[in-house]
């Protein structure tokens, strides 16, 4: 009463004898497990009170937190299913003995015990052992198969030894039950699949609904924010990054992730937009370029970075690809550069763009935009076929 020691939570362990109820209670009240088990048995003998309490606790005491994916996973050391099969077998032997004339009185109860224990073995194997990794599929098959065999053998022999209408009916019913027991795992599996499929469909529908809503309302608002704030502002940049993220999420399921150079350039654009007040308008036409030359993509990145650093604002990128030629245009509306007037130590354009493209067998040309506004970089690479 005065102890303030923290009691362990009342929860069933993941590795148990049968259900973990006794172990849970023992840990909670800090008694030894055998003592609790003994008490359970004694109270069960007193009119079944212990059994009721046991079942009640089994139903209500939660499992300890799981460390694996299957949150119903419990390892049980006592092979309940096999024990049930064995009891069923013993009862079947009794049935045969009674049927052979040892005593007519005991035959029917023994037959009922056979049916009940076999059914319990199958139920245990399907419902409980399915979540136990230490019980393989073969174990389950053996348990269910032998239960069914015992029932069939038992009913057939009773019928054969004492042919009567009642026995015939009982035998037929038991055989049907046995077949049903064998088919049970199929049905359980099918049912599980059906539920899983329905859940997946509901989830997909829900996602589509959310996507439609977001597409209609949130994207619009983000577009509006960008408009009102102006391209180069911090707010527009945040809104644009958010829009991009949302679009990716919305259309994620629509297209397989590609590794073509357009997708690569788009993701570069997204990354640069986060760091600079710039907005890239990426337009592509032509065939998909699956493995674009690294030099082309890196030179494009360099050109985009230059545009972002020195020009900002709206930058247009146009990628045109045929089977043999890829053209990339990067066009900004900044102050513009003259290659001739650049100091010799400025390596950005000369090395990272022109040098790189030349070494890869392509060309890079730099020129003033139309009307002397901005700069346009044209990268071109031909595939060596």
């Amino acid at each position, binding site marked *: 009463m005065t102890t303030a020691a923290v009691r362990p939570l009342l929860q069933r362990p993941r590795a148990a004898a049968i259900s973990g109820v006794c172990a849970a209670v023992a840990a909670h009240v800090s008694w030894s497990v055998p003592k609790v088990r003994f008490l359970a048995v004694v109270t069960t003998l007193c009119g079944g009170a212990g059994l009721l309490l046991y079942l009640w606790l089994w139903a209500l005491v939660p499992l300890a937190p799981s460390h694996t994916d299957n949150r119903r996973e419990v390892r049980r050391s006592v092979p309940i299913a096999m024990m049930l099969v064995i009891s069923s077998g013993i009862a079947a032997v009794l049935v045969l003995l009674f049927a052979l004339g040892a005593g007519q009185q005991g035959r029917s109860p023994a037959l009922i015990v056979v049916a009940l224990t076999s059914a319990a073995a199958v139920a245990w194997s399907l419902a409980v052992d399915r979540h136990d990794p230490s019980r393989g599929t073969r174990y389950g098959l053996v348990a269910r198969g032998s239960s069914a065999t015992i029932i069939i053998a038992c009913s057939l022999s009773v019928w054969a030894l004492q042919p009567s209408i009642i026995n015939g009916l009982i035998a037929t019913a038991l055989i049907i039950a046995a077949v049903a027991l064998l088919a049970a795992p199929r049905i359980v599996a099918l049912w599980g699949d059906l539920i899983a499929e329905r859940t997946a469909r509901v989830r997909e529908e829900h996602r589509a609904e959310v996507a439609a809503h977001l*597409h209609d309302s949130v994207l*619009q608002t983000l*577009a509006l924010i960008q408009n009102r704030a102006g391209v180069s502002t911090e707010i527009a940049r945040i809104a644009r990054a958010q829009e991009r993220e949302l679009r990716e999420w919305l259309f994620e399921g629509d297209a397989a992730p590609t590794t073509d150079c357009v997708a690569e350039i788009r993701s570069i654009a997204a990354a640069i937009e986060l760091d600079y007040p710039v907005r890239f308008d990426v337009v592509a*036409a032509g065939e998909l370029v699956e493995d674009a030359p690294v030099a082309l993509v890196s030179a494009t990145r360099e050109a985009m970075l230059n545009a972002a650093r020195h020009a900002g604002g709206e930058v247009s990128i*146009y990628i*045109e690809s045929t089977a043999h030629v890829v053209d990339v245009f990067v066009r900004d509306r900044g102050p513009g550069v003259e290659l001739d007037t650049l100091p010799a130590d400025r390596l950005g354009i000369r090395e990272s763009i022109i040098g790189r493209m030349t070494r890869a067998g392509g060309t890079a040309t730099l020129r003033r935009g*139309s009307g002397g506004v901005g700069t346009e970089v044209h990268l071109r690479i031909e595939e060596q076929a």
Partner: protein
Amino acid sequence: MNDPHTLDVVIVDDHSIFRSGLRADLDATVRVVGEAATVDEAVELIEKLRPAVVLLDVHLPGGAGGGGAEVLRRSSALMDSVRFLALSVSDAAEDVVGVIRAGARGYITKGSSGRDVSEAVVAVAGGDAVFSPKLAGFVLDAFGAVAGEQSESSDELDRLSGREREVMRYIARGYAYKEVASELYISVKTVETHVSAVLRKLQLSSRHELTVWATARKLL
């Protein structure tokens, strides 16, 4: 381009935030005379007001569920006096092609600034077509122009002429009509003629790729 009088415009969009935002953003050359939020409202309002230009969202509730394209089809009797400019947050090919082929004179994304939208309204009202870089890229793709398909005369509907292709490529590269004109040493009017011709082809061509493209790909 600078009309002395302002242009009457109706905004059709189901989001009031966007309508009011756009309304505040448009410059003095246009006057918003009405707003509609659904297909049925839009058809009725356009019939009643007969504005010079309708700014039309591609995705709209109501009607038979056809969105902006349905408004266009149901207003096709007015197509001579009322011009439609499609607006959308999405660049999905089927959306673009759907409204253009239903009769819209241009396509512009909702990310465009109020000034851009106003300019596009003026251009559309003057009978020109409005092409965004993405739409130009789409056209080049859909007509097989990148692969080098080219029509002999400019009459052929399923292909672009050499000049049209060049114009489309410049637009895709982000050039304004004026800049395209100076690059090609032609007048702005000629550029506009080429763009209108491409729009007509886009609307009337029965090229198989157009529909395939529209359903199979999305421009983002």
